[in-house]
């Protein structure tokens, strides 16, 4: 953690302590003082969160209290019906799929599952899906296409599972198939990075008409640690790699990769999950309305063009 961020965080913690002490002291009325301190805390939090270096943002995106997909389903989806299974091998819990209503919009929801407790995290393989997860997602996406339901994907993965079984069951093929199919599915697709957008593992459910990101999420071709290990020959250089890769929400917006940065509450999403879910819900409803107004052939054409123009090179002709 950089020195400035560290100092700010310490000051905020001190303030919190003072506020708590004042609240616990019932002998005198300190409500005016408490209010003052809370205002100060909010200002400092804003300052701290507005100047975070990239690797600090990575840490927030991985914060153990950061709301996972299951929280957003609880907070913003009505009548959720979970659907299981890829119809060929298994049911990867690491990708959750189901039908539900967001506002007045019926949708298919797909999301990476990270879990909240250590036990859950282990069970969900820390959000690293197997090929079955991607195949399950595709199977449900075809269902959504058939019934003209918009697809909402919530991305939060360090990457696809890199192990022997995943390789032998065709991790690369599963991701490649999803990417190819998502470029042409005849229904609106909205992709939102809510935490970690880890490389191919993110893209396997991350191709669509809208690609947006929460303020303190990141999306990258490789993790900062992985990049540091290869290019700097040491994971200790992750901070430098995080800066070099330009993967924060702000960078991605400037590079023209994301459509929108979805603002987080003061102190980031984990500080106020309810507020975060409300903002996310409003954004999704707005996107669906916008996309449903476009004729489907035009939508697919726009989607193709959106990706077609990404690239930076010298033509030389």
């Amino acid at each position: 953690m950089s020195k400035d961020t560290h100092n700010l965080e310490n000051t905020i913690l001190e303030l919190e302590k003072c506020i708590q002490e004042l609240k616990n002291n019932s002998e005198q009325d300190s409500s005016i003082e408490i209010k003052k301190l809370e205002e100060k805390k909010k200002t400092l939090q804003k300052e701290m969160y507005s100047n975070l270096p990239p690797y600090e943002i990575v840490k927030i995106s991985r914060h153990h209290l950061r709301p996972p997909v299951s929280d957003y389903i609880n907070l913003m989806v009505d009548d959720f019906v979970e659907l299981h299974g890829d119809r060929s091998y298994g049911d990867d819990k690491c990708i959750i799929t189901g039908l539900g209503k967001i506002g007045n919009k019926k949708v298919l929801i797909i999301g990476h599952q990270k879990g909240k407790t250590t036990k859950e995290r282990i069970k969900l393989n820390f959000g690293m899906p197997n090929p079955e997860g991607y195949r399950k997602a595709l199977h449900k996406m075809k269902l959504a296409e058939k019934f003209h339901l918009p697809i909402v994907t919530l991305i939060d993965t360090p990457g696809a599972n890199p192990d022997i079984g995943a390789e032998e069951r065709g991790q690369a093929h599963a991701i490649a198939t999803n990417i190819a199919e998502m470029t042409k599915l005849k229904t609106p697709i909205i992709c939102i990075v809510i935490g970690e957008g880890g490389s191919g593992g993110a893209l396997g459910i991350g191709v669509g008409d809208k690609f947006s990101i929460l303020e303190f999420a990141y999306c990258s071709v490789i993790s900062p640690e992985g990049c540091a290990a290869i290019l700097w020959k040491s994971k200790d250089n992750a901070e430098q790699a995080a800066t070099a890769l330009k993967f924060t929400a702000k960078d991605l917006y400037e590079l023209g990769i994301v459509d929108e940065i979805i603002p987080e509450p003061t102190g980031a999403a984990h500080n106020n999950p309810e507020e975060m879910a409300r903002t996310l819900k409003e954004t999704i409803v707005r996107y669906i309305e916008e996309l449903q107004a476009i004729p489907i052939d035009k939508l697919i054409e726009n989607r193709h063009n959106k990706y077609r123009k990404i690239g930076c090179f010298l033509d030389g002709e």
Partner: protein
Amino acid sequence: MFFKRKRNIPDGLWKRCEGCNNVVYKKKVEEKYNVCPECNYHFRIPTSERIKIMLDKNSFEEYWKNMLPADPLNFKDRISYKDRIAKEQKKTGLKEAATVGKGTIEGKSVIFAVTDPRFIMGSMGSVVGEKITRAAEKALELRLPLIIITGSGGGARMHEGIISLMQMAKTSSAISRLQEAGTPYISVLTDPTLGGVMASFASQADIIMAEPGALVGFAGPRVIKETIKKTLPKGFQTTESMLKHGFIDMIVERSKLRHEISKILDYCNSNTNN
């Protein structure tokens, strides 16, 4: 066999085979398509050699040959991306990892693309993504089969960050359009094909061929080893293992690739089949 330390053999008449570790007569290897006469190990070959082996003599007409990489992130690790590109260009004589053009295989016209693992591990940045995309568009425009030979240990290129990652979707979308039009796409996996290349256009083909003994997969073997903290089983992530698990159509020796592709093209031409 991929982790053996390379021992230095003086340049000249002999070279050491990375497959069987025998010292083999260089000329004999070169005559045999750069395949070891002792163990059938397929040496990695440069783009120029690949074109010579795959296409009819003098049939190759290169497209977009002056396309050059830019540096969208102003990326710098221990050396700058700009310097790295200059170094790789000098080393390989190539401007970028991908070479694309039109040529004939046993008289049949094709759009042909190859990625060279010597250029930043054949990784896909904007230039590779753009050239593969344009190759698919050209194939669609001319209604010609698309043949892509991948050698890409790097997958999506880190130095162009998110832009590289998005090339997976870009190439994939262009190839989808080609495939929907009924034009054949054959992919040939060579040593090594991993990561973002394998998880996008390389796996998307109608027919997937592979050279024997090539390293292919999603995650690199080093990453897997570190994750599971175990040694990897023998033959893991080879094309033979991929064939066994059902992810490729066939393993073809380098010397027979041309003819096998030509045979398949006879069946995959929707213009002549009734």
